[in-house]
């Protein structure tokens, strides 16, 4: 398939902070996502990754607003639609049928006074058109969905959210998101706040679900390990912009933006020796006082006077098909690299003889 399922052009999202004041949380985002791909949006808190994720479904809170750009989806029937000009009713039909979201914090995403089965009933009745959902039909469909994430429907359906563990809630939430077989699934921090073994289980199930249903996945995470595990493509965000994008291999083996390299260098490995790690100095900028030029320059070891002048655009470093092109927004990308050697793929051991 040649045309992307989701095409984002020059997207800008702002939050109102006062009567006439706004801060721009996301700007200049271009993105082409193809059928079956999984894209990780990575970055530190406040970099705009959640805002972008919510924007992709037009689910921004009241104070947020998409101020410019376009957001084109290819729908299930093969036609295209721009989400930004969509009316209220088509938008309701679009959500969950075409694209669904798994919100951050599985602990709090369910209504605490409604049983799990009622969440399925609400969703199916509200978003699935032209079909009557009887109680029995809801239970049958919900049971089937829960089984795909290896939950026992008899145990889970009549339960209230507080009667389930965090991992069970997160799995139920994923089952709910795929209830109407969406083409695109946006997951916000799907494993944060879960225990290690539960995290691993969720990761495995997401792999299985993707293989089985073939949906396209965008997931938001600050955990680079998770990105390496689940993503085909990675987009690093800093101060509301995508500063590097490419295939997971390109990004993890040879990052070309100092911020991406800094994030990867700061990850503590469990395998192998214990390297001394360097953090990225300083803190991310406030949206209200964004540095001029490249927003990363105050924290960047490579910064020169040139970096302070103009915003730096993404520069294509390696052409690849299907949106996998490796691009970085850095004037000094040829000097950027990893502090530690990459491991060889075969053995899973470090290539240097430690």
């Amino acid at each position, binding site marked *: 398939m040649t045309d992307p399922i989701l095409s984002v052009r020059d997207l800008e999202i702002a939050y109102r902070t006062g009567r006439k004041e706004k801060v721009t949380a996301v700007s200049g985002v271009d993105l082409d996502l193809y059928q079956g791909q999984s894209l990780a949006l990575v970055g530190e808190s406040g970099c705009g990754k959640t805002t972008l994720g919510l924007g992709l479904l037009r689910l921004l809170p009241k104070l947020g607003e998409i101020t410019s750009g376009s957001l084109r989806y290819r729908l299930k029937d093969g036609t295209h639609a721009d989400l930004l000009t969509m009316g209220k009713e088509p938008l309701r039909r679009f959500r969950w049928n075409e694209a669904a979201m798994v919100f951050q914090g599985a602990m709090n995403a369910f209504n605490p006074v409604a049983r799990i089965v009622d969440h399925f009933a609400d969703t199916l009745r509200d978003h699935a058109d032209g079909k009557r959902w009887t109680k029995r039909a809801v239970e049958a469909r919900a049971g089937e969905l829960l089984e795909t994430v290896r939950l026992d429907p008899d145990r889970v359906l009549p339960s209230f959210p507080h009667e389930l563990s965090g991992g069970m809630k997160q799995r139920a939430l994923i089952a709910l998101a795929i209830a109407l077989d969406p083409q695109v699934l946006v997951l916000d921090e799907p494993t944060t706040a879960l225990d290690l073994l539960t995290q691993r289980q969720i990761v495995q199930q997401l792999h299985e679900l993707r293989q089985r249903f073939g949906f396209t996945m965008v997931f938001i995470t600050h955990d680079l390990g998770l990105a390496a595990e689940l993503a085909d493509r990675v987009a690093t965000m800093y101060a509301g912009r995508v500063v590097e994008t490419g295939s997971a291999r390109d990004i993890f083996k040879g990052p070309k933006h100092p911020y991406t390299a800094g994030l990867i260098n*700061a990850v503590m490995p469990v395998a192998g*020796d214990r390297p001394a*790690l360097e953090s990225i100095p300083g803190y991310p900028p406030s949206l209200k006082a964004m540095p001029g030029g490249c927003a990363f320059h105050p924290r960047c070891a490579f910064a020169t006077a040139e970096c302070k002048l103009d915003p730096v655009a993404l520069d294509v470093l390696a052409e690849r098909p299907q949106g996998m092109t490796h691009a970085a927004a850095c004037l000094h990308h040829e000097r950027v690299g990893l502090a530690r050697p990459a491991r060889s793929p075969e053995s899973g051991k470090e290539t240097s003889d430690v």
Partner: protein
Amino acid sequence: MSDPILKLSGLEQVFDTKRGKVPAVGGVDLEVGPGKVLCLVGESGCGKTTTARAAAGLTRPTGGTVAFRGKDTAAMSAAERQEFRRAVQYIHQDPYAALNPTRTVYSTLTAGLRRHRKVSSKAESRDKAAELLRLVDLTPPESYLDSYPHQLSGGQRQRVNVARSLAMTPEVLICDESTSMLDVSIRVSLLNTLGRLRDELDVGFLFITHDLAVAKYFAWEGEIAVMYLGKVVEHGPTPQVIGDPQHPYTKALIGAVCEPDPDLARANRAVDELREADIPSLTDLPSGCTFHPRCPLYEPGLCDGRFPPLQPLHGRRLACHVVARDQGRTGGRGVPARRDGGGQVASWSG
């Protein structure tokens, strides 16, 4: 090892709840020495925090003792207890909730100093506060002293929390998931700062985390104790526990970590080996070894009878019937580790 500052012996904590007795911690023996790091790792509900709170004197254990410089804290005089409270400081998980929002950084840092009359003038207390901020790399201190917590980022707030605990010149810092709410890069720099404090001020650490990578990074020269359902199941020098885990639970935890390498990540599939994904409830503990319903090495008759003792094995303390038996058979050759690791510490007795 030099004399421990803090020593937990047979520590037990049973909570009385409506649903019955919850044995959150069931007999833990651990020590923290000056300038040493002991890391407690495990999943939620395994008793890490309960152990830490008892060690800090915040709760009274229902069994066992917490000894400070060799003296049982339960039998201390008021003066001794005050000294214990000064010397053992606690850093909480949530840097947002741990600071009083109506106090400036200066006021927070010097509250203890003023209370204990350790400073005599305003100028002196400001100098002292600035010195504390420099210790935790918040420089220049002048730009932070008069800030309120809401004006600081999470990482900066956690540094203020560390500075506040340092005001009392502690001998042991108990850090309860103190870095888990911070971004990756901020986390590394805070851990580097804590490591420097350990080396320069000879502060001992009881460091609690669910993140094995953090445990490995911070406690590389120290020890790791892995807890499961209120008991320590494996305890030894960090390079050995992480590089060559012996307990099946430790192995499962290490195998579950996502590494930032797409090739390596795809090769890991350890949880498949666990027989049961969910952790049992503390109110209904399995018989024998509490890990047996999930354990890939489970052998009926051997594992479900009694809890395995935590005994010296493979240069560490280990509680596993199967590994202990195989050790006896093969004369000390362990199950091969799944991952390579730098196990430099040659011998260690529990």
